[in-house]
């Protein structure tokens, strides 16, 4: 089944290096998987975990954050704030149950179009291995939820006949 699975990846890229790097991949006519959807921010330092969580909430299978290499930040050290967040965000996501393959933070310069393509390719491959991301839905599937609700109702009805529920306090 995973053969057909095409992960959806959100890429959040800084304007100066990584977005330009992704543009370069285009102007160089490099091919890489179409799984990534790119959103631009001015600096990777703008990327707060809320955006990452939002992506997973909206059904992304992976999130890629990319900024200028440390030292090359257009805003001097915006990417230093990025690198401070990354390990904590990664741990938080792992704790929440999101596999490490699904979150990646990299540095791509404006001249690394080829590298950008390779990173996307690799990420798509890695995520294919872990499969689609499922929101931690209540009982995994709404179907189960409905069953539960039905069984609860049945129980309630049955209990009412006997003059009271036999559960809870």
């Amino acid at each position, binding site marked *: 089944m995973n053969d057909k699975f095409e992960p959806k990846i959100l890429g959040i890229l800084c304007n100066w290096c990584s977005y330009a790097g992704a543009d370069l991949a285009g102007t160089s006519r490099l091919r890489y998987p179409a799984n990534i959807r790119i959103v631009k921010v001015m600096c990777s330092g703008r990327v707060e975990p*809320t955006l990452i969580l939002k992506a997973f909430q909206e059904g992304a299978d992976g999130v890629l954050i990319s900024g200028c290499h440390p030292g090359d930040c257009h805003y001097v050290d915006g990417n230093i704030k990025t690198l401070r967040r990354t390990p904590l965000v990664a741990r938080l996501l792992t*704790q929440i149950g999101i596999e490490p393959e699904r979150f990646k933070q990299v540095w791509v310069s404006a001249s690394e179009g080829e590298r950008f393509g390779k990173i996307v390719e690799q990420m798509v491959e890695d995520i294919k291995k872990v499969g689609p991301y499922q*929101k931690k839905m209540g009982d995994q599937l709404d179907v189960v939820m409905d069953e539960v609700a039905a069984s609860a109702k049945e129980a309630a009805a049955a209990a009412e006949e006997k003059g*009271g529920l036999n559960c809870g*306090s």
Partner: protein
Amino acid sequence: MAPKLQLAIYWAAACGGCDVAILDTDEKILDIAEAADIVLWPIAMDFKYEDIYKMEPGSIDVCLFNGAIRTSEQEEIAKALRARSKFMIAFGACAAWGGIPGLANLTNREEIFNTVYQETATTINEEDIRPDTNYPGPEGELHLPRIYDRVWSLDQVVNVDYYVPGCPPTPETIWTAILAIVTGNLPPKGTTIAGIKSLCDTCEREKTEKKITQFKRPFEIIADPKKCLLEQGLICCGPVTRDGCGHRCTNNNMPCRGCYGPSEKVSDQGAKLLNAIASIMDVKDEKSAQELAATWEDPAGTVYRFSLAKSLIYDYKKGGE
């Protein structure tokens, strides 16, 4: 005399602290009794389910619902009460954002059952008996509510009109909420009845530019009572947490635990706090960032202590409501 307020108080996945908190209003409880008829309060008086089902829609003016939703029974009662209440109030952190029970979302039912019914040192359960929704008892088939795979906040299950935050809400917060209801002086629906900004706004500790060189846990140091706790390496949830608790923790030299939930403009309390703290980590390269981050014991549990169920990642209405 104006008709008395018909008040219901209910608890779901909760510790009972919220109910006790109502009693903690001390002599004001008498004023509450003066203004309201308590039509349901299972923890204090005897009620049966049928008492609820017998009530007409709208017959409850205000339902103070505390506790998260963890079982099918809790969901069902929440829905039953919602249908009968003019105002549904998520009372306390658990009802509002899942609270402490919501931390169960870091794992799942299966693992919780494994721990509780198998792995704890004091458990002997050779037949691996686990809770089931149906049990053929001697008196006939018994039905137990199903435990859900995750914990829901009240508003993920039913519509909620107001939120009264806290673990538990302070008597002042409770009284403010009750006064608002009794006087009809109500804010727009969806309001959290407490402060608006974060706790830092009214925190009197001395604040400067922040830098964290080391994460510390409260038992490891005696914090300087005058200085910002975050600057001392303690993870204080104050910056992202709604004001209104009266600084009970920080006044006692303990960092804020975040029980008043996210402040007005914060969409995800944990993510915002994690980010704010990461941003001020005093490191400049990836390796030291890794090392410093690794010394923080339990990031998710700390930043989402009370609001994990409402984290963006879980926040959607149950059953697509």
